[in-house]
């Protein structure tokens, strides 16, 4: 009897997963076997292994890696600091606040800030460095992406740090470990799950970024996301778009497994 009700509760979940997770993935897989004229083909897959798409894949991974690395570098100390502050919730709210604002709006704001006559260059001018081209460079692309993704990195790390039992840190210090050793041997390993979750939340969306590549990088950075958008909206080559999507899904699955939590069932 109890088992039956439990199964009943499962129905909406199973439906949801089937309709919005399994079915779309199967559809993408299905479309990837058709060429632009609707003929069955494996050509999309051979095309994917041409130099154009391979370079694109490499550069997507490289930029996603950089975005994740910089986010982590900034987010970890921030999260650590947050746990030490008095009004934690308020500070945390302030960090999450920007993610309530529409992404497009934020990107447009950066167009103004980084422009030749924008405040960023005015500051450089005052500092005596002189105006530089900031917009449409790798720097601006990474900066804006990191800015957008930081809340997603801070939150899981903050949660992990909050859960950390402070007596473990005290014990480590009492037993004579320096603060660096304490961090390296106690704090960081115990918050590794948060770091992994944060990396997943940043790396995977970063891999398929597309709008920012046009707005902030002026299409000088091309990622797989850009190519998918092009194929679906402009060329109407849904087959090739789907093929790239299939590879993205595979890449993401590999990344999830690689960073996944191996200690199951605690």
């Amino acid at each position, binding site marked *: 009897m109890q088992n039956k009700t439990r199964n009943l509760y499962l129905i909406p979940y199973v439906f949801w997963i089937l309709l919005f997770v399994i079915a779309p993935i199967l559809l993408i897989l299905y479309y990837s076997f058709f060429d632009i004229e609707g003929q069955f083909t494996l050509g999309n897959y051979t095309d994917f292994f041409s130099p154009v798409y391979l*370079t694109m894949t490499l550069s997507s991974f490289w930029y996603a890696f950089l975005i994740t690395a910089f986010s982590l570098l900034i987010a970890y100390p921030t999260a650590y600091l947050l746990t030490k502050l008095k009004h934690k919730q308020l500070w945390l709210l302030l960090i999450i606040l920007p993610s309530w604002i529409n992404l497009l709006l934020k990107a447009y704001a950066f*167009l103004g800030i980084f422009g*030749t*006559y924008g405040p960023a260059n005015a500051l450089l001018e005052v500092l005596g460095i002189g105006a530089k081209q900031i*917009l449409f460079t790798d720097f601006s692309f990474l900066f804006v992406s990191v800015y957008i993704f930081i809340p997603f990195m801070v939150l899981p790390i903050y949660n992990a740090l909050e859960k950390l039992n402070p007596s473990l840190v005290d014990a480590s210090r009492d037993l004579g470990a320096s603060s660096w050793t304490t961090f390296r041997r106690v704090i960081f390993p115990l918050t590794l799950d948060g770091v992994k979750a944060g990396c997943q939340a940043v790396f995977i969306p970063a891999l398929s970024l597309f709008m920012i590549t046009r707005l902030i990088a002026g299409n000088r950075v*091309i990622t797989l996301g850009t190519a998918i958008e092009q194929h*679906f909206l402009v060329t109407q080559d849904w087959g090739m778009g789907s093929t790239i999507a299939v590879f993205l899904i595979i890449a993401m699955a590999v990344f999830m497994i690689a960073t996944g939590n191996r200690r199951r069932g605690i």
Partner: protein
Amino acid sequence: MKQLVRMFTAVFLVAFVLIYVTFQLNSTEGYSSGNTLSIYNWGDYIDPDLLKQFEQESGIKVIYQTFDSNEAMMTKIAQGGTTFDVAVPSEYAISKMKEENLLLPIDHSKLSNLKYINPRFLNLSFDKENQYSVPYFWGTVGIVYNPKLLGGKEITSWNDLWDGDLRNQILLVDGAREVIGMGLNSLHYSLNDTDEAHLQEAKNKLNALTPNVKAIVGDEIKMLLAGEEAAVGVVWSGDASEIMSENDELDYVIPEEGSNLWFDNMVIPKTAKNIEGAHEFINFMLDPEHAAQNAEYVGYSTPNEKALEYLPEEIAGDKRFYPDPSVTDKLEVYDNLGKRMLAHYNELFLEFKMYKN
């Protein structure tokens, strides 16, 4: 849990109140669900006051949606599902939509204002006898440049863009046909060329342009050029006139090697439900005074001959935006190259974007 319930109740309550208010507002203004007209147009491509005026005069509620490429528009119409009563595709898209049976014929007897259109823009190759489409705007692709930032240098041709002095100064519009077409034109090939050797040559020539290209952007190009973010931009003529109205320093030129001449026409897609209203709207836009008001707002060139009389002389007499037939005769209209060739153009464009020197 209690808090959660309270929050959701609040959200639902607000939503219901809003729906009720809109419903009330609509019915007091005499709009009912049956009397609506869905218009699907390019972004920033109509004077919003005209839409209000049309609503008042006809009593039809306008639902206005925008697209940013012909391809996106066609995909949405081909998929069906959404009602669009009027759309504004470009010429090659019209011939493609005709082929795919996505258009409904237009009843000329319902368009009393069609006679004001300059015959030069009627009965064109992509739609003989204007069976399916009526001219909305026309224009060219060319170069906007800022002589002040270029130290007084003048630009007259595509090949001027390859000048080493223009390093990091050029903004390109994010369109495969425009950019590949520019490459082909600079080599004096047709911008409808499908010869593989010519296309590769054009791509290699474009690759050599990359040091000069600052960015390849969408509609932001207007804001960036007006703000003097870069000195040179490859844009559609109407965007150029809009940019120039914001910044007097800039000038526009139709390159001497030739360029693209395009037409955006109003059509009634197969998804239309309010065909009567669609004709009424098209006729409304063909009215010379309305066409003039729209042309002044949008900045593109109107094909409406009578409307030119209502436009100030500095607009209607501007040869950069209303070039003589002797100039436009040398320009080319995009052919419908077919899906496969279009995909190839896009592939080349993608390779150009990825090229790093």
